[in-house]
């Protein structure tokens, strides 16, 4: 079995590698963080990924969610030293996990099961911990594209897709604006039936000649229409930003 090891600590990766090889499996690669794990999964196509939960940048749970966009995602086994919230979530959604320091028998058991996670289980794990993603992930022409949430200026719903506009360009994702609004309610606000804007990118609100309102944004020349019923909340945000 081909296995990818993901952990931010070199010693922890070393020990896992020893254990996996002793059990007669092959370690195809080691990743030090979530983004690297995603790229390696794409190129190396491992059967199973051992994924540490607590990592800098993108954590293990978010990495697992992004892995789901792959055509043939690897089986995921989470690894953690201690994370009460995650463990509770794993128990309720029947997700496999290993505790550090890992016992060889437990690892063998988990590798033999290799049950594949599904999106529902992962969404449940994230919801229970009220985690919001640090990146939006999408696939185009068989490449994974990651957009950091902090770089996103706005989400715009367009029929079946949502276009994600950032300083770096535009990508399309298949999600609902409503679930995005719930996930990112701390940093984004709804300004229109079809638009969700990052609070930190709002510059000002102007009045158009037709009597409606629109937003001027940082990092893009596009302006966004504000629907009448969202004008008061937009005004409040602009005021709180000191603008």
């Amino acid at each position: 079995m081909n296995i990818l090891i993901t952990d931010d600590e070199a010693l922890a990766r070393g020990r896992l590698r020893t254990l996996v090889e002793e059990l007669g499996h092959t370690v195809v690669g080691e990743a030090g963080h979530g983004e690297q794990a995603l790229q390696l999964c794409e190129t190396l196509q491992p059967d199973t990924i051992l994924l540490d939960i607590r990592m800098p940048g993108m954590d293990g749970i978010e990495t697992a969610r992004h892995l789901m966009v792959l055509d043939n995602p690897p089986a995921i086994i989470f690894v953690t030293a201690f994370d009460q919230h995650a463990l509770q979530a794993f128990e309720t959604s029947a997700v496999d996990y290993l505790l550090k320091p890992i016992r060889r028998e437990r690892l063998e058991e988990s590798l033999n099961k290799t049950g594949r996670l599904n999106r529902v289980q992962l969404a449940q794990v994230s919801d229970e911990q009220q985690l919001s993603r640090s990146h939006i992930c999408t696939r185009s022409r068989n490449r994974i594209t990651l957009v950091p949430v902090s770089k996103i200026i706005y989400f715009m719903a367009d029929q079946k897709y949502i276009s994600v506009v950032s300083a770096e360009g535009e990508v399309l994702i298949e999600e609902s604006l409503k679930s995005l609004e719930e996930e990112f309610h701390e940093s984004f606000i709804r300004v229109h039936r079809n638009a969700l804007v990052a609070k930190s990118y709002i510059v000002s609100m102007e009045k158009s000649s037709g009597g409606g309102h629109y937003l001027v944004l940082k990092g893009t020349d596009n302006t966004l229409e504000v629907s009448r019923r969202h004008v008061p909340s937009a005004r409040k945000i602009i005021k709180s930003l000191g603008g």
Partner: protein
Amino acid sequence: MEQDNENDVLNETIFLPDFCGIRMVLTVVVVAELLAFVILLMTSIDRPMSWDRLGVLSLFIQWIALSSIAILCVSRKWLIRLNDTLAGYISYFIVLMVTLVVSELAYWSMTSMGIFDNLRSHVDFILRNLGISAILSAITLRFIYLQYQQKMHMQAHANARIQALQARIRPHFLFNSMNTIAALIRSQPENAEAAVEDLSDLFRASLSNAQQLVSVADEMELVRRYIHIEQLRLGERLSISWSLDDIPDAALLPVLTLQPLLENAIYHGIEHLPEGGEIKVFGQRKGGWLNIVIINPCLPPDSARRSQGNKMAVRNIDERLQIAFGKPAGLTVLRETDQCRVEVVFPYQEKK
């Protein structure tokens, strides 16, 4: 464990308050004056109120009250060696004796000056005064005792909470260290051995009395052991710069004041950064006060990553510093956009 009496408020085991304090003297003066008023109001039902009478009454009662607390103040040294019951009875006896002596003096001076010539008899005067004094000082002592008991309960409660908080080495650190040791045992047995020794020292410290004061040198030794373990785990991601030359090695502070702060700096700062970062620790001496500042890089507060509170450890240390030294000793936390800054302030004291 014998400790510095001045620093350790929990060592206060006698229920008698310190009567030498200016606040205590003031309280006693006010209460004595109120008593003079009460007696005046009661005894002047059948005659007009007289300011002269109030003056004499006040003089008399203040004499008894102030002489009593003066004697209690001086004799406190001996009283604190006795048990509560005996100390209580002796204090009671002291107040009664003072009442007797002052009444006697008052009787002679008043009769010789011709004030209150309508006093019935010498014995009658003395006995009445002793009666009043006996009842009121019994009530007062009982009140002080109850107040003391309540204070003790509160302190015991606070102490238990501190102990509970301090005993808690972060499980995340424990299990990660165990994992590191498991990884090292085969490849680098010497490092594994050293890590086990370091971990044992940290656990021993965490099981000691939460209010125990240790020298900065001892605390830094614990910090170094802790950093040694984390360095094994995090490698190049963790770097630390020290500049504590201004802080005297012998200065005292509660055990495990600095180590948890460095643990926070790593757990909430360095571990979230893929490239790691540098923790800066520096100390300053300002007159009789010492400042130790810990600065660590951290994620901006609005980043998508959920930041779990570290308030408990911070509040615990702040509380322990205040119990040990009183205000303004304590801890302040300042969170800037991409760095966190914690400042520990405590007075420069050495072991006597």
